[in-house]
């Protein structure tokens, strides 16, 4: 839907396609936070995520004329960001990835066991979320934090909608299992 001031996402993308730099600044303002955070969670390194966020907006600038309205601008931009992250992760060694993952886990205030002993359920859930696999974490973030629909997650991640549903289901089951291992039974599944 067109907005009164020409600032809907679709309109902004069209303006970017015609090389309107005002539009890319406004788009940057709208999406830099969520794309940066999405990328931090994927690559587990803030400096790398900053670079990838920058590259994502450069790609948006360069390819906005190829945007088709099959998906929303937001979904299109998330997919670009994700592709950047996946390309980078493929180039990095397992050792580097393990190191980053270890650092991120160390950043957690408590282990699941400690959080459970303290009776801090919120901290326990956070600690267990940090221990989900990258695939599970990604879909959890897209659904719970970025409010993406099944179709949108499917478009961003590049998997069928049924796979999105089962992946989220298994992520939630794994979360419950991790909590159970720490001694907290959620009564599900």
């Amino acid at each position, binding site marked *: 839907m067109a907005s009164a001031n020409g600032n809907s996402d679709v309109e902004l993308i069209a303006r970017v396609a015609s090389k309107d730099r005002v539009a890319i*600044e406004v788009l940057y*303002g709208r999406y830099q936070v969520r794309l940066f955070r999405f990328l931090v969670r994927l690559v587990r390194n803030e400096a790398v995520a900053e670079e990838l966020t920058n590259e994502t907006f450069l790609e948006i600038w360069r390819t906005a004329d190829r945007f088709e309205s099959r998906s929303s601008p937001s979904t299109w931009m998330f997919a670009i960001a994700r592709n950047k992250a996946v390309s980078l992760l493929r180039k990095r060694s397992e050792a580097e990835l393990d190191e980053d993952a270890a650092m991120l886990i160390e950043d957690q205030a408590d282990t699941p066991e400690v959080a459970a002993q303290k009776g801090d359920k919120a901290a326990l*859930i*956070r600690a267990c979320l940090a221990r989900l696999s990258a695939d599970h974490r990604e879909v959890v973030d897209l659904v719970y934090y970025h409010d993406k629909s099944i179709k949108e997650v499917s478009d961003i991640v590049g998997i069928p909608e049924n796979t999105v549903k089962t992946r*989220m289901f298994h992520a*939630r089951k794994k979360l419950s299992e991790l909590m159970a291992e720490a001694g907290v039974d959620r009564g599900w*599944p």
Partner: protein
Amino acid sequence: MSENGTGRSAERDEIEMLLPWYVTGTLSDDDRVRVERYLADHPETAQQLELIREEQDEAVAVNEALGTMPAGALDKLLTQIEETDGPAIARAQRPGLMETLAGWLTVFDTPALKAAAAAAAIVIVAQAVVIGSLVRDDGPASYETASGPTEVAPATGTRLLIAFAEGATAAQITGLLEDIEGTIVSGPKPGGLFEVRISETELTDAAVENVVAGLKRRTNIIRYVAISN
């Protein structure tokens, strides 16, 4: 009703798979109706919704704890664009503060993202306040910020002129605007003043003065407030 290998019904599994999107309100209409019918017939499943809300709260908390792009990142991007696409754009083409602020604050549909955007936007507000205080008062049509000329919005509804305190945080400013249901419609004007619309209609003098009096007490956020004529 079919049973899967764990003794749970296949229908229950299918519905449970949809529940996260039911809770976030992003389910298609057909699926939402399907879930609601199932929940009506199986009230015990509602307990799941509470678990999902817990998970969502903590997923949001984890993401909110992450930072934002560093100051200067946008300039870096624009420099790269200029390097690839040619010389710098004319000053008049740069976005005004209001366009930038409006862009940064409109699409953030969750409180977490809205706060994060405001945290980034506050840099612009602070800059505008400083710049605005240095610009001589030649009237509303002649001022300009570092971001370019300011757009002048139609003078409708009930509006106030507000200058934010230097120490006001992003959360305080957005919170205050939410409290008074205010929208920044133009600015910064000389002296760092923003025009804030508090109603689409003309409120009575007593009502406006009441709002102004309340705002004047919030000296940690506001350093000046007056009715805009």
